């Protein structure tokens, strides 16, 4: 089934509401007028009844009735819309004012209504205290009332129909104009593509209900734009990182082959190529590792670990490098955790490697392990020039290097280390962040205790 548009739905809803309300009002009004007519009829018939009773006062037999009949007929002549049946106290019919009256008429006391040959009558059987008095049944022709009521019913139905139609049209118009910001929103959303992610909705001019949606939509665009920027920067970076070593290998090989050389020159060329190729292989392996992490395939093989021991082994491994630069390596605190030994060692070694690169000679690197209620914290801080605040969020980006004047080449680190560390920590359900001020930089890892 085709789904109805929002405008159509609103128009139908408005029309329905109006129809129900006007129908209700109409029915109420109709009932009220009908009741009013009944009251009027009753009053009228009671006043006529009083006249008839005074005419028939003292009648107690058919004979006395017949004496009064001319007066009664004279009374009735003045009232063409009134018909009367007179019965004796025993219920036997004495007189009908009209020949059209059926044999059977309601006899129970009170007011009722009746239809005879298409004409509507109000019927009154008055209560009587005198059992010897003749019984009267009054019938009042109320055709004109019924006509009025019928006309009014028609009017009500017409009002219902017309007002429903009018509100449907007005509602459709109102809905369409009310939904205009939504259409503008969908037009902008429709125009968004990879190269126009910078379009934003003017939420300040929108009605409050839509402004919220517009703000959420803009925020989504913002995040998309950011991820897309990072992704395209990543692809560009891959190409950039690979281009230099590739062109080195190409050029060097071609130059070497242009003329015959001695064996040492060939050896030198192969060695140089080897270095470039190893660097590229490392880059590809690192990128595969990150791709695995991105696809959620980095599943830690958990075992109980004493973090202090792991950190100590790493510090021992890096001790030689640290000694070379007279950097002091220390560790404080201990904690147990269930984690993947080689993955966590790799994560921490990247941080240590990074810290050793940026700590000036004579500086210090300190690893502090602490336990909180739900998490184990490892902080690794080093002395040296801090990282500026605007660079902090980008620190874990792939190929990001704090030094903007990056130099690529086989001796230089590819800038994937911190991204890999972050992937490993996340695969363990933890978080990593970097804090920095002038004079020191600190990486803080928080790992959930129950992992």
């Amino acid at each position, binding site marked *: 089934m085709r789904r109805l548009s929002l405008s159509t739905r609103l128009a139908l809803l408005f029309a329905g509401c109006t129809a129900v309300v006007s129908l209700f009002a109409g029915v109420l009004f109709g009932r009220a007028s009908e009741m009013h007519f009944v009251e009027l009829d009753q009053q009228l018939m009671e006043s006529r009844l009083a006249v008839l009773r005074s005419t028939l006062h003292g009648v107690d037999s058919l004979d006395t009735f017949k004496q009064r009949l001319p007066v009664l007929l004279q009374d009735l002549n003045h009232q063409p819309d009134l018909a009367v049946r007179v019965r004796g106290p025993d219920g036997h019919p004495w007189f009908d004012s009209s020949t059209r009256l059926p044999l059977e008429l309601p006899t129970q006391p009170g007011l009722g209504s009746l239809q005879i040959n298409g004409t509507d009558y109000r019927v009154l059987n008055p209560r009587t205290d005198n059992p010897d008095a003749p019984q009267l049944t009054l019938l009042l022709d109320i055709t004109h009332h019924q006509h009025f009521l019928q006309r009014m019913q028609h009017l009500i139905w017409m009002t219902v129909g017309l007002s429903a139609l009018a509100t449907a049209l007005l509602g459709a118009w109102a809905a369409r104009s009310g939904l205009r910001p939504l259409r503008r929103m969908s037009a902008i959303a429709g125009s968004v593509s990879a190269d126009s992610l910078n379009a934003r909705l003017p939420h300040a001019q929108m009605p409050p209900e839509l402004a919220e949606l517009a703000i959420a939509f803009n925020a989504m665009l913002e995040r998309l734009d950011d991820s897309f920027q990072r992704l395209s920067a990543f692809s560009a970076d891959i190409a950039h990182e690979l281009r230099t070593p590739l062109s080195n290998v190409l050029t060097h090989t071609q130059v070497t082959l242009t003329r015959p050389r001695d064996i040492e020159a060939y050896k030198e060329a192969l*060695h140089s190529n*080897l*270095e470039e190729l*190893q660097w590229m*292989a*490392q880059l*590809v*392996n*690192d990128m*595969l590792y990150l791709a*695995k992490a991105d696809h959620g*395939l*980095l*599943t830690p*093989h958990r075992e109980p670990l004493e973090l202090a021991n792991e950190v100590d*082994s*790493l510090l*021992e*491994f*890096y001790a*030689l*490098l640290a000694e*070379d630069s007279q950097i002091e390596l220390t560790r404080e605190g201990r904690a147990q955790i269930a984690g993947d030994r*080689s*993955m966590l*060692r*790799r994560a921490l*070694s990247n941080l240590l*490697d990074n810290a050793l690169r940026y700590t000036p000679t004579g500086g210090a690197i300190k690893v502090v392990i602490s336990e909180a209620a739900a998490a184990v914290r490892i902080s690794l801080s080093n002395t040296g020039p801090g990282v500026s605040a605007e660079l902090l969020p980008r620190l874990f980006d792939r190929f990001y290097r704090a030094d903007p004047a990056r130099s690529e080449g086989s001796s230089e*680190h590819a800038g994937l280390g911190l991204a890999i560390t972050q992937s490993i920590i996340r695969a363990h359900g933890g978080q990593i962040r970097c804090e920095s001020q002038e004079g020191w930089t600190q990486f803080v890892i928080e790992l959930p205790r129950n992992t």
Partner: protein
Amino acid sequence: MKLLIVEDQAKTGQYLRQGLSEAGFSTELATDGITGQHLALTGDYSLLILDVMLPGRDGWQILQAVRSAGLDIPVLFLTARDAVEDRVHGLELGADDYLVKPFAFSELLARVRSLLRRGSSTTQETSLQLADLRLDLIRRRVERAGQRIDLTAKEFSLLELLLRRQGEVLPKSLIASQVWDMNFDSDTNVIEVAIRRLRLKIDDNHEHKLIHTVRGMGYVLEERAH
């Protein structure tokens, strides 16, 4: 020492064969799974090098066939897939080692030698020696040309590794793994520093150098004619 390589990529197979032959092994190459399995079951090989993705039968199936035939040959897997599940799967089936492409040939050679050595060297050496360099495993002492050399514990382990595998080019990753138990890819230059320090103590005052750098591949301890 006869090795079987099952690798469907012609270039890779040829280079592996050449490299291993030149390292002193006799090798045979199969380029599909069915031939590979037939050779593995009928030939008398000391080691199998299997690619995982192969036409006909994959590496896992060959390994299963070999193990169910009761053959206890060491098996080294080569693969471009490095999902942890793959690794676990391979080790469960009875693979002995695992290398992920792209890998360095020196790494492969070192692993092949480790696998072949496994089980064969049962004799407990009390000392290791090369030229005038002597390492006493019991008293944990090192001497060169009769002069005692003081080494730290790690330097001792490093020298022991180099001596045990003298003549072999040891990649940095293998050294990091064997001496420091660091089993991850790392492009750090800790090993360079360690070798430099060891050289300072072992080689610097001697005319004949024993520790040599093989550019782009690793380090080797051997006596070179000069």
